[in-house]
């Protein structure tokens, strides 16, 4: 009984749980449009600002967003970005990559995406970008239908035009 054993320091208990997520009513509408290559936003009924994507309510005013969708351009402006050099098991991208916040033309909220066809030394705030879509036969109900954004070649947007979105 008195025989000393090594203390147990690590016990591995794999936890596997399956979840079935619902996109929700408004995200479903948005995803069905993305499946067709369309980017749909919706207006807040209080201040008319266009949410992309709409999540069913305006977080600022706490009111449902139910009006007609607004179709947006697939061009926009990088309002801010970071260059990521940290591997993550959940992200399937080659390092390093630029994670960008894009303000699409016609939208009043930004989305996170990736920058492609551009050296990471050239990425900057205010840079104008356009979406590069995957081939149509690969489209699914996902924003990954846009492979990445690439520089559009237009002149940079002035800081004042997007600074309130950072």
């Amino acid at each position, binding site marked *: 009984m008195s025989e000393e054993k090594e203390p147990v320091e690590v*016990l591995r*208990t794999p*936890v596997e*749980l*399956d*979840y*079935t*997520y*619902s*996109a*929700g*009513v*408004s*995200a*479903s509408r948005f995803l069905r449009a993305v499946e067709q290559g369309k980017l749909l936003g919706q207006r807040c009924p209080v201040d008319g600002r266009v949410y992309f994507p709409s*999540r*069913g*309510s*305006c*977080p*600022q*005013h*706490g*009111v*449902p967003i139910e009006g007609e969708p607004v179709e947006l351009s697939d061009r926009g402006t990088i309002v801010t970005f970071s260059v990521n050099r940290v591997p993550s098991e959940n992200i399937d991208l080659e390092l390093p990559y630029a994670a960008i916040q894009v303000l699409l033309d016609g939208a009043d909220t930004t989305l996170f995406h990736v920058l492609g066809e551009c050296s990471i030394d050239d990425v900057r705030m205010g840079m104008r970008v356009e979406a590069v879509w995957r081939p149509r036969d690969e489209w699914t109900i996902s924003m990954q239908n846009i492979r990445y954004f690439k520089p559009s070649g237009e002149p940079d947007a002035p800081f004042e035009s997007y600074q309130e979105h950072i």
Partner: protein
Amino acid sequence: MRDVAVVAFTQSPSVRCEANRNETEILIPVIHEIKQQTGLATEDIGFICSGSSDYLAGQSFAFVAGLDAIGAWPPVSESHVEMDGAWALYEAWVKLQIEDADVALVYGFGKPSMGDLPRTMALQLDPYSVMPLWPDAVSMAALQARSCLEAGVISEREMAQVAVRDRANALNNPFAQVKGEFDVDALLAEPMLVSPLRKHDCSPISDGACAMVIAAGDRARELCERPAWIRGFEHILEPQDLGVRDLTRSRSTEIAAEKAGAHSDKIDVAEVYAPFTHQSILLERALGLGDAAVVNPSGGALAANPLMAAGLTRVGEASRRVWEGQADRAVAHATSGPCLQQNLVVVLEGN
């Protein structure tokens, strides 16, 4: 203590699976409705507190989505408990006691249909010695029911009677999920689910949300004709290990009820959060309810069990009976953890 009362309550209909709506979308109309009912805007609310669970949602910080539903702007004084909304109510009640606010909004929401609920609940157990065995929630409750039956403190017939009562009461509750007229003998003829529990002994799995407004003093009287004044509010935790607890009674409910003053006068209505029939019997005893008390007029958790909202719903349903004059004195109860590990008792009065 400062006089604080429950003045408004709204809830979503409980359903087995909200296939189309996400949690924020379930919550939006519930919050919208309570704001309409009370005429309160975000600026009028001094404190907000919510209850929800990341593991039910299957992601970290799931409660953050709740802020989208309430319109948290200008920035709000707000907090969250990883517990049933009934404990969020407790935190809000404390906040009103220190006069930091006169009006508080409380809400709870859960969408357990997303995962495998009985299995998920195993993650509440000791991660080093118990959880690796994956005891599911129904089996844990069955162990308790068995010990109650063996000790002779309850019978299977009494358990079935609870199911018949609650499901019949639920006929008057438009938000309930399981309702109808049932016969005790017919229920007892049903097969066992996890012996000694039959299907009718177990609460359903429900998706849902609810919201409540509480207010202090004159503010409560402005917002509600007959506020449900909180006269006692206590909660007590027991050790988790089943081996060190008396499973044939709810000791923590007894202590909480005693401290909350539930025993000091007659109770007209009790809303008890019992996810299983045998637990209802133990809880009714622990609360010291007399024969005259109407138990679970809403149908209780056996009729609808939206986790993280179901406890707060008991307080809302008990308050409703006070507002409507059916009760001068009501008690509401909420529970958390395996086999009634943690229990909360609120005493509400119309005068």
